[in-house]
């Protein structure tokens, strides 16, 4: 017996999977850029003796994004959600700009928006827009 979810779901799954495979090299470039920006932000936070909790949360975001065993869209989504929490929890520190911290966060958001745009993924785009609008 031939198993299928619906009469055309397999076609769209294959289409989407191939699309991800073809854009993955481009997404990886933007992902590496975000990772570099997070590292730069961590350096600034450590230098300015900002809270350990802040630094740990940001390190966790870095780990999620850097985990190559997880598919690129999934880790981008996880990162987006974690980074959102980070921004919500520490709005004052970031928003009160020390402009260096603020600028670094803006670069991360910019690169995340670009990543979402290139992915053409609905969920990732919605998350990126929410992140950008809430900041």
């Amino acid at each position: 017996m031939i198993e299928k979810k619906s009469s055309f779901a397999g076609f769209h799954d294959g289409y989407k999977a191939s699309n991800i495979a073809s854009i993955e090299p481009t997404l990886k470039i933007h992902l590496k850029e975000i990772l570099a920006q997070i590292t730069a932000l961590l350096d600034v936070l450590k230098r300015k003796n900002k809270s350990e909790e802040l630094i740990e949360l940001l390190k966790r975001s870095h780990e999620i994004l850097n985990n190559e065993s997880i598919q690129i869209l999934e880790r981008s989504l996880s990162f987006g959600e974690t980074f959102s929490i980070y921004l919500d929890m520490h709005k004052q520190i970031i928003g009160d700009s020390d402009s260096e911290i603020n600028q670094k966060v803006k670069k991360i958001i910019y690169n995340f928006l670009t990543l979402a745009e290139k992915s053409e993924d609905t969920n990732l785009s919605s998350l990126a827009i929410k992140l950008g609008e809430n900041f």
Partner: protein
Amino acid sequence: MEILIYLLVFLFGCVSAFAELLSRYTDSPLGILKVGPSYIYLAINGISSIIAYCFISAYQVNFGPIGDSEIGKIILAGTASMVLLRSSFASIKYGKRNIEAGISSITQIFLNTADRAFDRKRSEINLNTISEIMKNVDFKKAEKDLPTICLTIMQNVSNEEQQRMGEEVQKLSKEELDYKTKSIGLGVIIARVTGPDLLNEAVTSLDKTIELGHEPEEITVEKRILISRKEKIEKLKKKFK
């Protein structure tokens, strides 16, 4: 009587080969019989069935109860020939290639030639038909809609086959080719599964939705959301640059 038996063996071998061709060319099952080289392929299998039958009879090869009757031997010869033709007694590594030593290396040459000739002939027939069907189809409008309609009508296309189709269409979409080439390519990809008749029906039913040069009367809600999302991202990127 013996001639009749050999004839039955030959026919059974042909039927086995025909079943193999059917599994390979699912989009044009009866079309196989319109192409000359397919008869060569069937004949090769038929003859090897006779050889297998002679072998079984001459050496009284024991296949259990089924081999005791003539009918059993005919069936065994017909199906065993498929195995015999593809058997080898050794596999020799030569550089990066593996060379099969046995009957399979000889019969494979004949089979590949017949197979390729069949594919070429079939491609000619199909290409003319598909070009005609797809001549007014806009690839960009049809790349998702047309396969979706076709697959909705078909009930027994496996998930794996659908995924392969989706991957092929997506790759075609990314290629920098002329739009007409892409439209024909899309038609070929779909017709391999559905056959040209269903493809033609689907193109006719979608009509102006996928027609070249025809602008849609309204943008769908989904497309509107997509455009809005893109615009928001662009706007936000300017804010964070």
